[in-house]
């Protein structure tokens, strides 16, 4: 493998088929707030050779939802109501991207989170989203 996984990261499987399709997805072991990361491969790119906006939106979405669910830690899950994403910079094949989550409001029925995706110290995406919590039995 030409690009090793940085020390302290392990692959993570949320049981989400779409993430299994586009992954692998990694997380930083022991992070106080769930911290996801990916290695950009050719399959993640657009026609211009940089990472596709849809991949970045997917990572921002999943990282936000999963950080909120992990922080609440009561068996509830969450789905996205809205996600506003600004694309500030680019990433290319071989880059290691990390999603840094800031929970703005984790309590109540609707939670809010910010996500910053970076390549090293370079900011490439900022997103803000709102997310609705539910108990799994209610959804079935």
């Amino acid at each position, binding site marked *: 493998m030409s690009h090793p996984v940085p020390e302290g990261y392990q692959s993570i499987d*949320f*049981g*989400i*088929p*779409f*993430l*299994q*399709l*586009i992954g692998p997805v990694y997380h930083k072991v022991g992070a106080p707030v769930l911290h996801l990361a990916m290695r950009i491969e*050719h*399959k*993640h*790119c*657009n*026609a*211009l050779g*940089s*990472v*596709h*906006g*849809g*991949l970045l*939106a*997917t*990572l921002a*979405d*999943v990282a936000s939802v999963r950080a909120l669910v992990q922080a609440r830690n009561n068996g509830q*899950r969450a*789905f*996205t*109501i*809205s*996600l*506003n*994403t*600004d*694309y500030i910079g*680019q990433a290319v094949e071989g880059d290691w991207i990390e999603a840094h989550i800031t929970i703005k409001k984790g309590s109540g029925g609707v939670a809010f989170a910010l996500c910053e995706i970076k390549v090293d110290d370079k900011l490439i995406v900022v997103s803000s989203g709102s997310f609705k919590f539910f108990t799994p039995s209610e*959804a079935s």
Partner: protein
Amino acid sequence: MAAQPPLGFGLLDCTHLPFNHLTGPIYIKEGDSTPRFGMFILPQHSDAEGFAERGVLATLADMVAGRSLVIASNFTLGCFTISLNLEFLAPVPQGGWIETTAKLYGQQGNVAFVACDISYDGNVVMQANGKFKQFPHADLR
């Protein structure tokens, strides 16, 4: 036998669009003033609850908006996404056929403002609004 898209839709060639190739297949219906795009929500597009993962819809909207701008420029302009704002109104079940078409609703210099709502079974399930920066590019067919 795999489900067939509605009449008039053909497979979109995503050879040069690796992420859309991975997350497709995507279909296109041309001939109208603005092309229409669609896809089936297949098992690999699902979230943990069995509905379409939000990222699938985001990816489709982003591609359709950008691709529609490229087509509208007769393949003389490329573009990249500056921002994409998404509102998720309803879930899409596995097997569902979703459709969308891009609408250019504004232009400020080389920045295009595009709406790209996705519908399922006659209802809008995701509203998308994006800003896209355009630039000369001759090789995006």
